[in-house]
């Protein structure tokens, strides 16, 4: 029951993100390459989340647990890599923008970069560890 609830919440969040992105695209008019890149990364994150949910549903249908000790370990490892990526992107992104482009990055851009870098690192390391073993 707990697993099914988790999947339902996940589907709800993914749908909410897609609807928000759709509204953003409709209202933004012409999109810059930078914005397209950010939307692309967000869509990759949603697609990866969709894969996780599908994988869990598949196991529940077979009568197997959605998550077991190996997947929890994978989750912990991917979380720690994502956390490290968040810290380094928070420090590195404004610093790199200042050094290479002489540009003072606004706080909301830094937040977006931290979320996207952390999310992407988590997804990539989770998928890699789940596929390769621990």
């Amino acid at each position, binding site marked *: 029951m707990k697993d099914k609830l988790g999947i339902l919440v996940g589907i709800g969040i993914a749908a909410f993100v897609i609807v928000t992105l759709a509204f953003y695209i409709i209202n933004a008019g012409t999109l810059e390459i930078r914005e397209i890149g950010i939307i692309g990364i967000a869509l990759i994150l949603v697609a990866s989340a969709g894969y996780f949910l599908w994988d869990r549903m598949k*196991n529940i249908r*077979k*009568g*197997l*647990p959605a*998550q*077991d*000790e*190996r*997947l929890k370990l994978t989750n912990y490892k991917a979380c720690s890599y994502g956390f490290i990526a968040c810290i380094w992107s928070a420090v590195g992104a404004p610093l790199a923008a200042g050094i290479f482009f002489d540009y003072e990055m606004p706080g909301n851009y830094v937040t977006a970069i931290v979320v996207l870098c952390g999310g992407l690192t988590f997804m990539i390391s989770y998928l890699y560890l*789940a596929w*390769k*073993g*621990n």
Partner: protein
Amino acid sequence: MKTRIKELRARYNLTQDDLARKVGVRRETILFMEKGKYNPSLQLAHDVAKALKTTIEELFIFEDS
């Protein structure tokens, strides 16, 4: 670390799905254990050994590093 899970599973005519269901883990976990790519917890090792009617010492072959 090598394991005899595949051999014993074949002896009892169990699929990876069957064994996974018996011990309450995902099929991929059994697959990675068979390949030696995942070191299970002591609890899981015990459960798998019990499901295959053997002992942990018989099931897992440890190599000195």
